[in-house]
């Protein structure tokens, strides 16, 4: 007797009868991560953090629940090196004056806080707000 899965799509080269969740592209038996919101036009955003300043970026989502989020930041301006989460700088970027002191979401907004220990700098960031509850 077949089960009522709804929909099940397996990756190329894998069997539709596979028991391994990693082999499915989508399977209504398992949840999936939906990208509800990205920056406008899917373009990274820029925030200016002044001399020895702290800036919090507030990104409304108004989902009514606290969502999972992913954040990426170019810690040292102009390098093209993007770090995820609340990043700790790599060996090449130890001279950066920027660090992220916090990133969190509530039921209405995603908040990103950048601290600058040096002269004013433009910080690039990108975010994904996901349609799945973080809390």
């Amino acid at each position: 007797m077949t089960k009522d899965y709804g929909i099940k799509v397996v990756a190329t080269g894998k069997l539709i009868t596979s028991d391994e969740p990693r082999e499915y592209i989508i399977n209504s038996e398992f949840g999936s991560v939906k990208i509800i919101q990205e920056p406008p036009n899917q373009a990274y955003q820029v925030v200016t953090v002044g001399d020895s300043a702290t800036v919090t970026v507030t990104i409304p989502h108004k989902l009514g629940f606290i969502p999972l989020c992913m954040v990426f930041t170019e810690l040292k301006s102009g390098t093209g090196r993007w770090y995820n989460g609340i990043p700790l700088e790599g060996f090449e970027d130890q001279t950066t004056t920027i660090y992220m002191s916090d990133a969190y979401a509530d039921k209405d907004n995603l908040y990103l806080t950048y601290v600058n220990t040096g002269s004013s700098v433009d910080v690039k960031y990108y975010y994904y707000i996901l349609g799945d509850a973080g809390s």
Partner: protein
Amino acid sequence: MAKDYGLKIAKSDKSIESTDKRDLLASSQYSMFKYHMDVIGTVTFTPGDTYQEVSFDHNLGYVPAFIAYYKDTAGKLHFIPSHRKPTDFLNWPYAYADRVKVKCGYITATPYNQYSGSMSHAYDEAMGSTAGFRVGKFSDDTARNGAVRFTSVSVPQGATINSATLRVAIEFIIGDGSGSLIVKIAGIDEDNTADFSSNPMGRTQTTNTDIAEWPLPAAGNYLERSITTIVQEIISRAGWSSGNAMGFLLLDAGGPNDRRIEDDLATGINTQLVISYGDNTTVIFRAIIFKNKIA
């Protein structure tokens, strides 16, 4: 009137009409992360290393979204980054993406499995002074001996010492003599060498000692000597603990008359001890790279 979604799939037991986005499995109104590649790499720390990195080329030509992990020596898998950066942070993993690669690495605030310190105490036998030390011969051919002490020697008890180097600072060269110094180096054979408020010159010496014949460079340089077996003997003492103090005697062993060096504790360059110990360690990184573009 039905809306044209393209595709919308609700989770089991949820209504297709639900307005709660969490109830949807997929919807053409919302994109999803598209898998590009899943990579694993290993770095090896050897004693003295301060960072190691591994790169994974993704060949996308743009900066992709990614998730990175590292596995610690206990086998636990951690997201990178795992926590915010406090001001007293010691070591941390990192990961970034650029247009070519995802790079993962690990930085240690102090060199891996390596102690490096400057003398915290000194003793000049002839002067009975703790202001510094001198070693060599006075103008009347009498010996000038001294002692040095290092604190907070962060080497675990019983560790295998790969190398230990005593770098004796030549702050001053004194006397009209010439030729190489000949100096016996002995460890002070104690679990935790006390300070030099009392004369340390008579303390028990390690079994292992070293005789160094040192041609003298100009003042401002260092004389280096491998003292691996001496340090191993002290570290192997049952009563040794990481963070204890370690001391050494510097004794004239027949050098030329009227030739000695001096290192003052409070000024200029200072005598140093560098110890490398233990085995290499590996850190495993894993990155999941998506096709989703962030820059």
